């Protein structure tokens, strides 16, 4: 699958919700467990700029195509945060710049030193580290797309489902970029494959793990991916990853659910 970066940048728009009838949430609000999940998603989307930072200190940036992607990706994710913040605001949940700042400040030294760790690892490992980043990005975007689709199905609210469908469509284009990059960088490179496999197996955790509490991660995993239908989605993501060079047989998503006691 080729990825057309020119088309991606040309078509990149902020997600739109002005045409959707979301105001009826005032009469028919979402249940608390969905609000909790939306809040998680919103915070993770706004946190993208910090992920961008962690990628920019490695050799993942510098190439025209990667830089172009990151510029658009970062903005699209920011707007996912804005869209979800709007839905939350209709439920009386306010997300503003001050709160986001407080959350980032509270993450403390682990967050502040994240770029240091990334930069050192990248300098030590060299170019193969980029393959890990791309694979990691693909895994996160696959799960994001699946999560939005699942929430749309679970809630069955037509306007919300449409908004989540639009967001998921953008996440799917991000998947295409990361997966194409990962595939190209892993193919024929056993060292990169070994490194990437090791990183996914030992260091990967569901997106949001570093910034949200464990309870929140478990809630979201259980809410979206608990039960047989949820597990089907998760297994599909594992299969996508397993098809990338050197990743056969990895089941990181299913393992993460099992570790958190989320029943299939």
């Amino acid at each position, binding site marked *: 699958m080729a990825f057309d970066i020119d088309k991606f940048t040309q078509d990149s728009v902020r997600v739109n919700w002005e045409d959707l009838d979301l105001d009826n949430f005032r009469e028919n609000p979402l249940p608390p467990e969905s609000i909790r999940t939306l809040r998680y998603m919103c915070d993770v989307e706004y946190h993208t700029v910090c992920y961008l930072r962690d990628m920019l200190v490695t050799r993942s940036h510098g190439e025209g195509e990667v830089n172009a992607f*990151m*510029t658009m990706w970062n903005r699209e994710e920011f707007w996912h945060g804005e869209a979800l913040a709007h839905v939350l605001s209709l439920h009386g949940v306010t997300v503003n710049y001050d709160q986001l700042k407080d959350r980032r400040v509270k993450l403390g030294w682990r967050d502040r030193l994240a770029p240091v760790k990334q930069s*050192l690892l990248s300098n030590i490992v060299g170019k193969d580290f980029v393959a890990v980043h791309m694979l990691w990005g693909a895994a996160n975007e696959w799960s994001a797309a699946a999560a939005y689709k699942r929430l749309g199905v679970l809630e069955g609210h037509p306007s919300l489902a449409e908004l989540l469908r639009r967001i998921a469509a953008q996440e799917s284009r991000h998947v295409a970029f990361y997966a194409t990059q990962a595939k190209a960088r892993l193919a024929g490179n056993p060292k990169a494959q070994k490194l990437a496999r090791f990183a996914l197996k030992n260091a990967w955790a569901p997106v949001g793990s570093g910034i949200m509490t464990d309870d929140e991660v478990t809630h979201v995993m259980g809410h979206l991916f608990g039960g047989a239908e949820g597990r089907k989605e998760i297994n599909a993501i594992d299969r996508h990853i397993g098809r990338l060079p050197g990743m056969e047989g990895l089941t990181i998503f299913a393992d993460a659910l099992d570790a958190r006691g989320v029943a299939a």
Partner: protein
Amino acid sequence: MSDSAGFDVRSYTRTPRSLRRKDLDLAALQGLGTNTLLTLRHLQQVERGTLRLMRDLLVTPTHAESRVTAFLTTWAYEEYWIADALEAVLDENNHTEVAHSTKLGELRRSWDDRVSPTADAIRTNLLGSDIVAGHMAVGLLDSLVARASYARAGQLEPRLGAVIDPIVAIKDRHVEFYVDEASDRLAASPAAGRLGRRAVRTWRWPGSRYGAPGYVQPVLRYLFADPSVRADIDAADSQVAALPGLAGAHPIRQALGRFASRGARHR
């Protein structure tokens, strides 16, 4: 999302301006002079360096400032399309030459890419959020000289108007943001003021760190050597001097003076 008073970041993020090739009459921009093309290339390369600048801010406590990162996210998007439009104009003129880094520039780049982010992350996080004041002052200086460069390039080659005018309008908003942020943050504490003044003192002309002076100098001479431009430069400097604790500063004139004296030495 709510926003505090001053520059309306929220409204800015909602109304980015993206210059698209398809909206430009490129055929009308064929046959531009060498000085114009060298200037556009210099500006295009500066705009392409946006993510590198963003990285240097994001590894510091500035990354926690969600108001600033919302701005940067939109700013990077606008800069991307400015660079793309300039590239289209350069392509139309078959101008493929780019400013290559010197050996020293390569060393600096590799240092900036591989060592600085780590060192800065540690140093600035120890200094704390006062560091943001310096970043905002530098952002202002970069935007002011970009604005002045585009405006002057448009004066010297009126055919560029259709490309330059929207860019100047984009830069106006960037200047407005940085003035607002820098004013608040420089006044926030004595340490912020000190770090801000140091940032202004050590500020470098954008796009002059890696390439040979031979690339940037002719561009600056072309744009700013004429005495009639002095008033515009002074006006830009006065926006910096109006910031808390920076009265009397004229960093842009000083930087141009350094280029001029270096140019005289090389001749």
